[in-house]
């Protein structure tokens, strides 16, 4: 870090100190998936927005900061280590860049400021019961009728559809040719007539995903992003952001810190605290080395004009390493994996917690972390991409 960056880091720290309330910090601490408590995420979004920091990576003309990649990295890390709650990311990280690239002037001026301010929260309607990894086989139909598209079908695993007010989705507008050729990208209000939601309870007992049903939903054709039948290209552009936009090494630092905390409270089978147990400590060091290697890889991605392949590597290593770190946490947690303490994750919970201080989040996090190699392009699909596109194996 050069002097300017150190000054910048101090500025960020000062801002955090003044603005990240205990409640918001708690929302960050209690995260057990990529999502934080929804209301706290919105509150923090608005605070960041007032400072002009809600979408630092956006270009300045759209309300971003113009920070160097290093500064963005520092910013993200400081937030993460201070346990700031994650923002609802889909608008900022995915739809924003898409609209800047493909949107009409009207769409940009309608939507971008509202993403920036947190007035609109977007969910992503891609996956369907029959179309997961093979997204191009999606079958939710959109038929042109005057100035509207009439949409029928259903989307599944839509994260936070029960809270978001907007959805961007992929729909089928043509059935001829390659499956990819007949897909369009549409924006919709969640409160349109004909949209219904059924909540899906996750393995940890909470609701984050939903199934969204479209029954003769009329979406104005002005909500089409890009050309009709060219939504696949739009989505692929977006998927690169989903994979490349995230710094896993920040998450890993937080997860590793948690392992260290637990290992200072829990005793190993040999009667030593885990942190003094040579076997455990060397396992931890192995994971730290992987985390270090990934951190440097992420820096390579940021400083490269054409990161391409490395973003798939980062997603793959980032998620699988996250799983290994929580697995080690759970090894130290031992039998305290068992108590189900969902209520202790609520923001205003004031009761006691069973087990070491991090038991509550670690147990749910370990379970939820299995999803990270499924969503956003499964580990298998990532490997297929690397094999084909990078290694040239066909």
């Amino acid at each position: 870090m050069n002097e300017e960056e150190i000054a910048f880091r101090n500025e960020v720290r000062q801002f955090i100190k003044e603005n990240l309330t205990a409640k918001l910090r708690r929302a960050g601490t209690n995260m057990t998936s990529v999502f934080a408590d929804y209301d706290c995420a919105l509150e923090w979004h608005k605070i960041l927005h007032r400072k002009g920091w809600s979408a630092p990576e956006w270009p300045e003309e759209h309300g971003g900061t113009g920070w160097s990649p290093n500064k963005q990295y520092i910013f993200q890390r400081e937030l993460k280590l201070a346990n700031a709650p994650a923002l609802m990311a889909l608008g900022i990280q995915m739809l924003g860049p898409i609209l800047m690239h493909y949107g009409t002037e009207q769409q940009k001026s309608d939507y971008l400021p509202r993403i920036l301010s947190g007035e609109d929260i977007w969910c992503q309607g891609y996956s369907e019961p029959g179309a997961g990894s093979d997204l191009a086989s999606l079958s939710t139909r959109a038929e042109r009728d005057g100035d509207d598209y009439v949409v029928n079908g259903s989307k599944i695993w839509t994260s936070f559809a029960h809270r978001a007010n907007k959805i961007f989705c992929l729909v089928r507008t043509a059935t001829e040719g390659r499956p990819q050729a007949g897909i369009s990208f549409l924006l919709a209000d969640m409160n349109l007539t004909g949209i219904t939601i059924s909540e899906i309870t996750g393995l940890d007992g909470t609701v984050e995903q939903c199934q969204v049903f479209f029954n003769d939903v009329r979406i104005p054709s002005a909500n089409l992003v890009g050309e009709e039948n060219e939504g696949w290209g739009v989505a692929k552009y977006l998927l690169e952001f989903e994979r490349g936009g995230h710094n896993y090494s920040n998450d890993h630092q937080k997860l590793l810190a948690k392992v260290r905390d637990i290992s200072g409270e829990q005793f190993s089978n040999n009667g030593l605290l885990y942190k003094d147990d040579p076997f455990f400590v060397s396992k931890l060091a192995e994971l730290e080395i992987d985390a270090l290697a990934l951190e440097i890889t992420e820096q390579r991605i940021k400083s490269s004009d054409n990161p391409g392949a490395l973003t798939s590597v980062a997603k793959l290593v980032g998620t699988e390493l996250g799983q290994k770190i929580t697995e080690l946490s759970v090894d130290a947690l031992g039998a305290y994996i068992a108590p189900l303490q969902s209520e202790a994750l609520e923001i205003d919970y004031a009761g006691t917690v069973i087990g070491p201080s991090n038991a509550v989040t670690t147990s749910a996090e370990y379970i939820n972390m299995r999803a990270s190699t499924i969503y956003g392009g499964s580990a298998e699909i990532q490997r297929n991409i690397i094999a084909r596109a990078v290694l040239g194996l066909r």
Partner: protein
Amino acid sequence: MSLDSNQKLTDEQQMLSDMVSKYLSETYDFDSRRKIANGPVSVAPPHWKQFAEMGWLAMPFDESDGGFNGGPKEISILFEAFGKHLVLEPYLETILLGGGALSFGPEDIRRQYLPAIIAGDLQCAFAHHEPNHTAERYYVGTTALQSKDSWQLNGVKSIVSNAPHSGLLVLTARIKGRKHDSDGIGLFVVDKNVRGVHCDDYLTIDGRRASEITLNEVEVERGALLTVDAGQLDTLLDRACFAVCAEAVGAMSALISMTIDYCQQRKQFGQSIGSFQALQHRMVDMYIASELSHSLLIATTNAIANASDDRHRLLAALKFRVDRSAREISYGAIQMHGGIAMTDEFKVGHYFKRLTVISKQFGNANFQLERYRHYNVHNNHS
């Protein structure tokens, strides 16, 4: 080590196996189980009385105590089936641990409690682990002080499975020595409703119920001490360890068949996902992991049945291998099912949660490694 001769089930064992599979396949549907698992805490799994009527609860007890003298083979038949069907009923806690400990007691105690246990009218919990020390086998900070004709118990017990539905607690308390010593630990039977026992009840991720228990000047009579023999405590814990290994083997084989079925049915890119070689290889590895555990289960069952010197080493190997295999198989099963595996409505994740809990019970992987090395050296020298 010859296996073939010992692998065959006797007629009685075959009957037991058929009966258990039939009963559980017909009655133990996943949705009803899920409703129980999700709470509230006060609701108990409903099949306990039927288990009693079918004679399963009597299985491991001595004939003189009203039991059927069942050995490790019978236990593994029951527990493999429990694992396959994700059974929530507290056989481990009430019969193997609670009932097992009571069997060490004097005759009047056995007469007092065992008939009600075998009849399914009385449930038990085994309160051994203490806060932050759950990975240690002998850590007992709870104290037992003797006065004229009673004991006074003081301490804290953590994650006591089935305590919310138990009338009896069997608990460990230290009579002498330091907190980590294997000697000087007494096994006591305590009526859960006596003064000074305080329970905080909760659900666990594998659909069971457990409590944090505080013992504050709990007075019990002299006869409440069942044994102070460290060997008997080991026998009890080893038997429980063995049973959860059999349960895990059942759960793993269920996960593998579910995954194979799913991969054959689920189509992406115009073909069944089971046709992708990456998934085929992963399923093969899961199958191998399961068979390795199964082999060790068979060998351990025989070694225990024959009271072979090698039984401790084999049990450590088995539990270690089960931990490894359980991780590999649950992770693989979830991954290959995709999004649906992450939902409460779908079975796969519940097997994962149960297997995760089992991995940490009755000796984690490191404990088993150390034990294995200990007995390995021991065996090589003899």
